[in-house]
């Protein structure tokens, strides 16, 4: 019992330490601040939005920013400020749970393949390669037009699609530790495969998988907002940045504010996640500069 408590305390301390290291560099600090700001905004914004996000008022069409409407109104007379601060909610929820799913199935399959090796590994990796060579946008569009565009479809679809890259990372990380002495001795002690995975392999590949997952999160956000921009994501009148940009784009020359506000929201969140993922990788001592961008 005490041992378990000690272990938990150690994990907690480790997390604190990682966050401290991340915040010690300006880029990491900026990223964390932006991300936390967005998360807090997404959780609390329904409590204090000034207007109803779906209230249409034709008399207020395309009013420029004023003290009454901070970011102006859009082509249907809806308040852009309200819609912008609500716009991150769907994006954050969908991509957060999506990356969680991606992490789980990608990590599990990757560790399994790395451990088993042989024919099964070959076949699975071939299939993963095939999925990787279909452009993401075509695959996502196919899935979405097949199953619909509700949140409950988008989360597993994105999670499934973005998990295939994690399979490769998890497999490579497992390959790195599989021949090490402590695994051999665990086998010699007669531990079961499950126990070896849980106690020996997982602690050693966890960092690599989590860093990859953080990176996938920003890519997933990019993919998700591109989908809504193209009209295949969430459906109106749900406030969503991609959708808002695509709706306001046609009237950009009269009403630039309706396009700039969601652009600012989406770009700041993506940059925040990216900087955080980068700092996270550095804090865990994984150099991603040679593998993936940023």
């Amino acid at each position, binding site marked *: 019992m005490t041992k378990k408590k000690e272990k938990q305390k150690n994990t907690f301390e480790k997390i604190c330490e990682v966050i401290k290291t991340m915040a010690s560099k300006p880029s990491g600090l900026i990223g964390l601040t932006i991300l936390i700001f967005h998360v807090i905004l997404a959780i609390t914004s329904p409590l204090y939005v000034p207007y109803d996000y779906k209230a249409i008022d034709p008399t207020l069409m395309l009013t420029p920013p004023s003290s009454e409407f901070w970011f102006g109104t859009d082509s249907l007379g809806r308040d852009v400020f309200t819609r912008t601060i609500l716009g991150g909610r769907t994006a954050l929820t969908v991509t957060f749970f999506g990356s969680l799913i991606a992490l789980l199935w990608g990590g599990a399959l990757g560790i399994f393949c790395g451990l088993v090796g042989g024919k099964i590994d070959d076949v699975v990796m*071939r299939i993963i390669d095939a999925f990787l*060579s*279909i452009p993401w946008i075509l695959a996502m*569009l196919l899935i979405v037009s097949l199953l619909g565009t509700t949140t409950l479809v988008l989360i597993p679809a994105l999670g499934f699609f973005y998990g295939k890259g994690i399979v490769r990372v998890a497999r490579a990380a497992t390959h790195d530790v599989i021949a090490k002495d402590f695994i051999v001795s665990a086998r010699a002690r007669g531990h079961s495969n499950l126990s070896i995975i849980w106690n020996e392999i997982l602690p050693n590949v966890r960092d690599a998988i989590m860093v990859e997952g953080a990176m996938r999160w920003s890519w997933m956000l990019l993919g998700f*907002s591109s989908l809504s921009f*193209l009209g*295949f994501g969430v459906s109106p009148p749900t406030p969503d940045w991609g959708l808002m940009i695509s709706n306001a784009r046609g009237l*950009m020359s009269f009403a630039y504010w309706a396009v700039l506000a969601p652009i600012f929201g989406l*770009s700041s969140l993506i940059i925040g996640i990216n900087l955080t993922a980068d700092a996270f990788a550095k804090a865990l001592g994984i150099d991603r500069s040679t593998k993936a961008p940023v």
Partner: protein
Amino acid sequence: MFFLVIKRILLGLITLFIVSLITFAGVEVLPGDACTTYLERQAFGEALEACYQRLGLNVPAYERYISWAWGVLQWDFGYSLSGEMKINEVLGPKVKNSLVLASASILIGIPIALLLGIVTALWRDRLPDIIISTVTIFSMTIPEFISATLLILIVAIWLEWLPGIVIVPTDATVSELLPNIILPVIAISMIMTAHMARMVRSSVIQVMASDYVQMAILKGVPYWKMVFRHVLPNALLPAINVVALTIAWLLGGVVVTEVVFNYPGLGRLVIESISNRDLPVVQALAIILASIYVGINLIADLTTLMLNPRLKSLQIKK
């Protein structure tokens, strides 16, 4: 060596085979089929039967797959639903338009990326590096539809320098296209250049830290001679793979950019065919895009193999 090349090509072909299976299965499970889409409300009874008969949809799925795959091998993708045109004829001009856009972006992007990557690596952690690195992070993390929209807003609407959308017929000639695609090319090459520049940077930094470069410095080799003779040839080799990956990634990014600029290329065809449920076209597009991806990766792998004698012997030993 010969054996290795054959093996790589075979692996690529197997990948393509699986892709064709996946897309065929995916399109197969989509609700509705070519005939229900084409006939819409009249899709019942005799008309439906006749349509199945005409399009050959009344045979089992695996037979259709075989005949479809056989057709694809002979560059025959069947007929599209909308307008009943041959898919080859629909695709032809769009493939050309997208190729013009992509190659213009690549031709502009690669030299700039090399230059920026080398400059940031040589002046690492100093002012040029900090400025360029910050800009590259911004330009590659922001989604392409945002940078494209911002470009239109600033360059076309506020400054009024260039037209905001591309208005050319689908069958425009290359010389007609070029003056119209300046903004889309900038939008695409911005992101691509940023990705590549970062790869080149980290690759050059790695080589600069290696033993033989330290040795060359100690021996008193002049700085620029060392950079050009010892560092760059070794640093740019791994960058080939990155360039290939970036070009392959471009396939997805081009789709969105083409939609933003209303450009008559493959990207818009992807969106249109999926909205219209034009399944034969979707299948054709999937297999074409996947072949381009596999082909580019194959070429990159083989080039690195040819250019790097160490890798060659390593692979054979394996």
